[in-house]
């Protein structure tokens, strides 16, 4: 069943704090919190009752906390880019917003302890901290590398830093951490940490670069893709990207329900926005 735990809830905002270029927001969602797995996302109505913005906005869940009963919360890291996210981040505590979730696929968690490398780009680091906590609780080693264009766009909360064995920061402008892109440093980090599996979330270009490295080193790479969505629940067919099936057929698949977490080796990274040659049903 698709999104078998998803439901809609009018959730109260219980915290909204600016962190660098982003807002860290906490929503009281009740029982939904207990059904969230790292990698899931939520879709939120924006703009209020009379809004001209008719589509929901999708946000990766940063962390969730099931407090039993009505007290469960989800935390999001929101970048105020467009009209919808600016409206959301401008809301005062105690306002309510309509949230649908949890949606989409989750990161696969190995049953045995592993050496995992978590790679985040910009606010794409958000879902990796919840994932790190789960991996650590299963006895895994968790190394993390976060990259962004500049220092203010790195999202790395203190408690998150404590949850990992090592944290490496990279910035394109050198304003924090190592000077360069995350992919420049990945081969050395993988060698130093003895990485067995890579988890990533961030811009498509970064995910493509990580997939190339993972492929060369024959490492499993689970990535959370980012595509523009209209509905988030699989009905609108706008968020598609070309994915290879187990039998090798390329199909345009919805990143909202087939993803957002997919095996990086399935994505046709050369042309994520085109219809690659040989795609099933290509005209």
């Amino acid at each position, binding site marked *: 069943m698709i999104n078998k735990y998803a439901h*809609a809830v009018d959730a109260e905002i219980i915290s909204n704090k600016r962190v660098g270029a982003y807002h860290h927001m906490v929503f009281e969602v009740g029982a939904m919190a207990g059904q969230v797995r790292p990698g899931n996302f939520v879709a939120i109505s924006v703009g209020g009752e009379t809004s001209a913005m008719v*589509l929901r906005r999708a946000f990766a869940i940063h962390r969730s906390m099931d407090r039993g009963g009505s007290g469960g919360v989800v935390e999001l890291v929101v970048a105020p880019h467009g009209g919808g996210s600016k409206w959301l981040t401008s809301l005062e505590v105690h306002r309510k917003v309509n949230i649908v979730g949890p949606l989409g696929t989750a990161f696969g968690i190995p049953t045995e302890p592993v050496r995992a490398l978590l790679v985040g780009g910009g606010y794409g680091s958000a879902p990796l901290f919840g994932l790190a906590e789960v991996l650590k609780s299963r006895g895994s080693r968790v190394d993390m590398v976060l990259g962004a264009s500049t220092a203010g766009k790195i999202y790395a909360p203190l408690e998150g830093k404590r949850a990992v064995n090592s944290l490496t920061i990279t910035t394109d402008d050198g304003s924090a951490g190592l000077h360069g892109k995350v992919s420049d440093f990945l081969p050395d980090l993988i060698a130093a940490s003895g990485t067995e599996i890579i988890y990533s979330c961030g811009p498509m270009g970064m995910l493509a670069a990580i997939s190339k490295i993972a492929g060369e080193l024959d490492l499993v790479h689970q990535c959370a893709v980012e595509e523009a969505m209209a509905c988030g629940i*699989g009905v609108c067919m*706008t968020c598609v*990207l070309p994915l290879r099936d187990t039998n090798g057929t390329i199909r345009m698949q919805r990143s909202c329900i087939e993803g957002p977490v997919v095996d990086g080796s399935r994505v046709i990274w050369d042309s994520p926005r085109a219809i690659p040659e040989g795609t099933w049903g290509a005209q």
Partner: protein
Amino acid sequence: MNFDFTTTLAGTIFPNPIFTASGCAGSGKELIQFFPLTDLGAVVTKSIMLKPRSGRATPRMAETPSGMLNSIGLQGPGIAAFLQDDIPWLKSKGARIVVSIAGESVADYAELARLISGVSGISAVEVNISCPNVESRGQVFSCNPVTAHAAISAVKKNIDPSLPIIAKLSPDVTDITEIADVVINAGADGLALINTLLGMVIDTNSMKPKLAGKTGGLSGPAIRPVAVRAIYQVKARFPQISILGMGGVTNGREAFEMILAGASAVSVGTANFGNPLATMKIKAELQELLIERGFASVAAAVGYAHREED
């Protein structure tokens, strides 16, 4: 008061007048987590074509004021897989099914009509003729009286006569009642009004059209007055024809507006994207409003805005 929420569309009775619009309910499997499909008047399926289609490249969508543009390119599994997988699943869930079909040639429409004729459990067929005609330099069937007539005739001649045909028309024409006239003459039992309006958004950063397909179909509340006008005009000229109204309905009051204009049932499209429970909200509000205004049935309200007396 004993209120009758059933509605008759193209000679077929549906349990209530709120349908999902074609292409806005996935395969049904995406929505069943949120409500039982039996609570809908009907599921109108995505427009199905003869062969599997990948659809267009992305971006396929742009949000616009009170609406959105889409350019999906009729992505779908093709009629064979659709009849094998989608229809039995919808039937197993007890859904009322209206199958939407789309062709690239008159022969495609004829073939699709033949293929669905033997299938049980289908309440009606909605014929999407807002598709490019490959035999006429890509001109849209519904924008030309000759091709609109040819497509509906092809369906009529090849379909099981017990299956009602609902022709879905484009508002991008000079006089929609002229197209309505030719498709009724071609054998349409009902009309679906309206399809999306063709639009474009140009990204002022890239300075190019935002959609990969350049143009897209405009939907959502922005087009609702166009839909109400089209329904009203067609109902005024053809009072006997059944109309399935659609175009930016998000609440019960707006569904009521379409019924007053002449719609016997209302399809909900873009609103499903903003709220997976939109159809259920609209249905409840509509029923309450009809009762509040003193109507004993949906049928009594259909076209009520056309009355002469005060």
